[in-house]
């Protein structure tokens, strides 16, 4: 034992280990800060550690080239022993990290912990948050499967809308005019070198700030922050009730971190990694791509928004919300920290979170991309075939053949971009149907140039039969030009 003590002394003399401990994990925190609400930051840090370790291992195998990226993912999944587990840990680690960093921010926000003197901690933290999102995004791009590719496509089209420099920005990020090998190399570099380096540097600053300012005490309703006296009060509080972060105060952090690690390992072991859904090849359009969950809401915004609003929100709303995020400590300067005295803060969180959840749900269920093989792979159900005339049968094959079905479901099956057509005859008259098909409307393309008059007749006579038996088709109130034709000579 004595020998250990002397080795320690030797090291301490050179490295000042004792002082390091006192100033870092051994520093004193207010007893009230040892709370179950204060555990999310350290858990996020633990996720980062997992990501660094598993990510390094993955990078040993992963080949960032368009020919081999997908294949090396499959190699990890099926050939490399435990490769799948590595991928699973990295995948779930990233999911948990995004979730935890978000919860951490909400907690800090609700507890008013970003207020004087910790404004900069918030600003650095927000940058870290954006970095985590950037990691998640570039990471799913590296999978280079159809989901990832498609996510890239959407972000590129977002970038492309930036006024004046849109083209240049996309080109810069993609490394070429289209998404290609150069894009993949860039994403790899960004994901493996650039952003991690930024994260680690910012993290050092973030933690330095946390240590410098001290962990905020648990807010007390009615207790105001006064910049004049705050620091003094804080120091007194620490002196009076303080305890060391480790081993005393941080017990809850350890427990929670252990729980999170267990959860990540369990998810990785039980659910496994995300199986890539086909190589990123624009000519393979047979799947309906979906981004990872944290992008669902973002992408849903763009899928659901009318086109004229898209550019507006990309150019103004998105940057604006980022600016607001950074500006939180400078906008909300009230002296109250406790949430019960800050209804605005609660409303903000509830509003932002509900809209994110609703959007994510929409993103999960809404059909932003057409169902690409509905035309040949989703049958016209028998009830819409029976009792129809031969001409109407041909019309039904045109609904399929002209790929109307990729956007339109009939009785629930098929694409969901446009309205379900099973009761369309009760809504539109024959002539309105003709007009809809020929001229399109809103998000529906005009088919006038792609259909011969015979085809229009067949198609519309089929559509005209789509009404429930007990509900007659919509009639022309005033007969318009062309009535349903059977022997019209054209």
């Amino acid at each position, binding site marked *: 034992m004595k020998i250990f003590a002397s080795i320690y002394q030797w090291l301490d003399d050179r490295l000042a280990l004792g002082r390091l401990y006192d100033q870092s994990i051994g520093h004193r925190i207010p007893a009230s800060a040892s709370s179950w609400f204060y555990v999310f930051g350290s858990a996020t840090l633990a996720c980062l550690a997992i990501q660094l370790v598993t990510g390094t291992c993955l990078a040993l195998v992963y080949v960032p080239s368009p020919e081999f990226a997908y294949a090396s993912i499959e190699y990890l999944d099926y050939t490399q022993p435990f490769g799948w587990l590595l991928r699973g840990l990295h995948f779930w680690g990233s999911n948990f990290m995004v979730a935890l960093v978000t919860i951490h921010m909400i907690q800090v926000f609700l507890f008013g912990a970003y207020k004087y003197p910790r404004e900069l901690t918030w600003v650095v933290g927000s940058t870290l948050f954006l970095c985590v999102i950037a990691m998640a995004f570039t990471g799913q791009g590296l999978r280079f499967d159809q989901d990832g590719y498609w996510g890239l496509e959407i972000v590129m089209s977002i970038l492309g809308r930036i006024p004046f420099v849109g083209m240049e920005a996309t080109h810069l990020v993609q490394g070429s005019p289209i998404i290609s090998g150069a894009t993949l190399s860039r994403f790899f570099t960004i994901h493996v070198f650039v952003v991690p380096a930024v994260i680690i540097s910012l993290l050092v600053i973030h933690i330095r700030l946390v240590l410098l300012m001290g962990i905020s005490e648990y807010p007390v309703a009615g207790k105001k922050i006064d910049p004049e006296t705050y620091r003094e009060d804080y120091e007194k509080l620490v002196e009076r009730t303080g305890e060391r972060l480790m081993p005393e105060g941080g017990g809850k952090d350890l427990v929670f971190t252990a729980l999170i690690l267990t959860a990540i390992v369990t998810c990785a072991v039980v659910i496994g990694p995300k199986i890539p859904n086909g190589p990123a090849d624009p000519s393979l359009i047979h799947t309906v791509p979906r981004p990872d969950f944290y992008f669902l809401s973002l992408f849903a915004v763009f899928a659901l928004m009318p086109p004229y609003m898209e550019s507006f929100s990309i150019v103004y709303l998105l940057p604006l919300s980022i600016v607001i995020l950074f500006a939180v400590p400078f906008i909300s300067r009230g002296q109250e920290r406790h949430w019960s005295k800050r209804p605005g803060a609660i409303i903000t969180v509830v509003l932002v979170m509900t809209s994110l959840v609703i959007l994510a749900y929409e993103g999960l269920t809404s059909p932003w991309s057409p169902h690409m093989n509905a035309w*040949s*792979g989703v*049958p*016209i159900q028998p009830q819409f075939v029976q009792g129809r*005339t031969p001409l109407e049968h041909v019309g039904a*094959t045109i609904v399929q053949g002209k790929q109307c079905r990729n956007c339109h479901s009939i009785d629930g099956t098929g694409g969901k971009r446009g309205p379900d057509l099973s009761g369309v005859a009760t809504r539109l008259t024959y002539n309105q149907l003709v007009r809809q098909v020929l001229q399109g409307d809103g998000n529906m393309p005009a088919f006038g140039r792609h259909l011969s008059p015979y085809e229009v007749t067949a198609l519309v006579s089929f559509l005209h039969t789509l009404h429930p038996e007990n509900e007659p088709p919509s009639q022309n109130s005033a007969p318009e030009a062309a009535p349903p034709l059977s022997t019209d000579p054209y």
Partner: protein
Amino acid sequence: MISHRLLLLCMLPMLWCCDGLPGKPDPANRYIRPTEVTNFDTLYSMNCSGCHGAEGKLGPAVPLADPMYLALASPIHIEEITRNGVAGTTMPAFAIEAGGTLTDQQIAIIARGLSTRWGQPQSAEVVAAAPPLAVSQEGPPGDPERGAAHFRTFCGSCHGPEGRGTARAGSIVEPPYLGLVSNQNLRTNTIIGRRDLGMPDWRQVGDRPMRPQEVTDIVAWLASQRVPRPSSSMAN
């Protein structure tokens, strides 16, 4: 220290059985390129069920699962049409060279798979006496005038004497209809009927089975009522 070693010992077997863990991706779920799919059911439901019906019947287009159709149509006939489609109709060309998505091998799998999946043995006599299914084998050209008479005999009860439809079955002489179907389609329907929709095949459609020449005549009569296709589209 002891407990540490115990822990390690316990973990070793765990590492071994990792291969059986539920999260390990199952190669069976691996993504297969559409051109590598060789399973008939998948190929059929992804490519054909949209128009020909989920089970090969009760779709708007020819019921490919009809056992009599499968007995009369040669796999070559089916392959040919699947590969190149039918010009002027909505039957698309599926061969990659023709702009489709299926390889020759896949088309062969579908053509052969149809009989394996839905075919039923038919008596050799019936098949031998049946009118040839393919238009290319129909023999001497049909006579529309005789065809009109045969139509009244065999088909009039349902489609009306002029073919303009009755309550039992719809019109088959409207120019848009005739303009959008091929003679092969008319011939196929006349021979095998639409048993899934209540139209009998050539044997039961009248008091006696139709003769091959009668089939040809009826198709000729139907085809003679085509109005030249309007050329321009409606957008102008």
